[in-house]
């Protein structure tokens, strides 16, 4: 879903957006879907995602004069705003002890035969639940890699890490996720069965 960025064109738009809201509207249209995707997968429902996306772009508009191109793409700046706002949102949610609705389970459904849909949804739900139990950084790397289809270099620009650090984080995340989905300790009351994964820690 990502397209190559014309950085000269983007720099021109950013300069215009500092003076002209219409130009900011063009930047908004360029990035709204990507930011929405990121926020949606972090919060798990449409209503809160829309509220947070609105806040992201209002904050960007309010602070665009402070944005300086230092080799970090404008999208990375937006993602960082989104990351901070989502973190605040989770902090507020945990204080109020509210568990968000998981629209994601429905969004993750795949096309298929009717009898296969329920099982497929259950598997998607289990995977998404496991992803959402990961730390924010690990969730972020998975969303940027699988939903946004960004390269490790691009993800590094957004997360302020080197390419190698992103790769390591990604590997650690996969291993943690595999263990969470396969080891019985993660869900002791149920018999674990998740896709075709096997336990590989033999004794």
């Amino acid at each position, binding site marked *: 879903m990502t397209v190559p960025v014309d950085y000269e064109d983007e720099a021109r738009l950013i300069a215009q*957006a*500092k*003076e*002209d*809201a*219409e130009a*900011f*509207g063009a930047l*908004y*249209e360029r990035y*709204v*879907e990507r930011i*929405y*995707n990121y926020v*949606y*997968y972090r919060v798990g429902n*449409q*209503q809160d995602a*829309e*509220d947070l*996306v*609105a*806040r992201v*772009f*209002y*904050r960007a*508009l*309010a*602070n*665009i*004069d402070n944005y300086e191109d230092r080799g970090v793409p404008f999208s990375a700046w937006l993602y960082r705003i989104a990351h901070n706002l989502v973190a605040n949102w989770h902090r507020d949610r945990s204080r109020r002890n509210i568990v968000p609705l998981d629209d994601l389970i429905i*969004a*993750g459904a795949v096309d298929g035969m009717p009898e296969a849909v329920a099982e497929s949804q259950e*598997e*998607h739900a289990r*995977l998404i639940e496991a*992803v959402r139990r990961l730390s924010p950084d690990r969730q972020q790397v*998975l*969303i940027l890699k*699988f*939903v946004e289809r960004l390269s490790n270099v691009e993800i590094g620009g957004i997360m302020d890490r080197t390419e190698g650090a992103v*790769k*390591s984080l990604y*590997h*650690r995340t*996969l*291993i*943690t*996720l*595999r263990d969470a*989905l*396969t080891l019985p300790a993660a869900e002791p009351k149920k018999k674990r069965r998740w*896709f*075709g*994964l*096997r336990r*590989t*820690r*033999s*004794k």
Partner: protein
Amino acid sequence: MDETLTPAMLEDLLERCPDALSGDVALPEDVLARYPDARAALDDLKRLVWELETTLKPVYPRPDFVQELKFALVQAPAPGETPGPGWFPRRSLQVAGAVAIGAGLWYIAIRRRNRGEPGASPLVT
């Protein structure tokens, strides 16, 4: 001597064979000899990557939401811009920023009211 593959060792293995997850890359013989379960562990991870690819799909915002928010953003006074002639002297960027944030909070409050969320904002009754 056979050893059980711990998560840390598996991570080291991935560092050593960075393409192991993206294709059918043969693992080094010394690794397979030392960790007999390495191949199974990699198969698990490949399967997990495939499931992530099929589950974490792009989602799209509602077109109405995208258009409404764009309209609201474009209407908000841009930094350094005056809302109307003779009404608002050219002030600091901080003032314009505060106006934009206020407009954003107002927009969100209106949306919540329209959704029927009680007490969404003390500003909206």
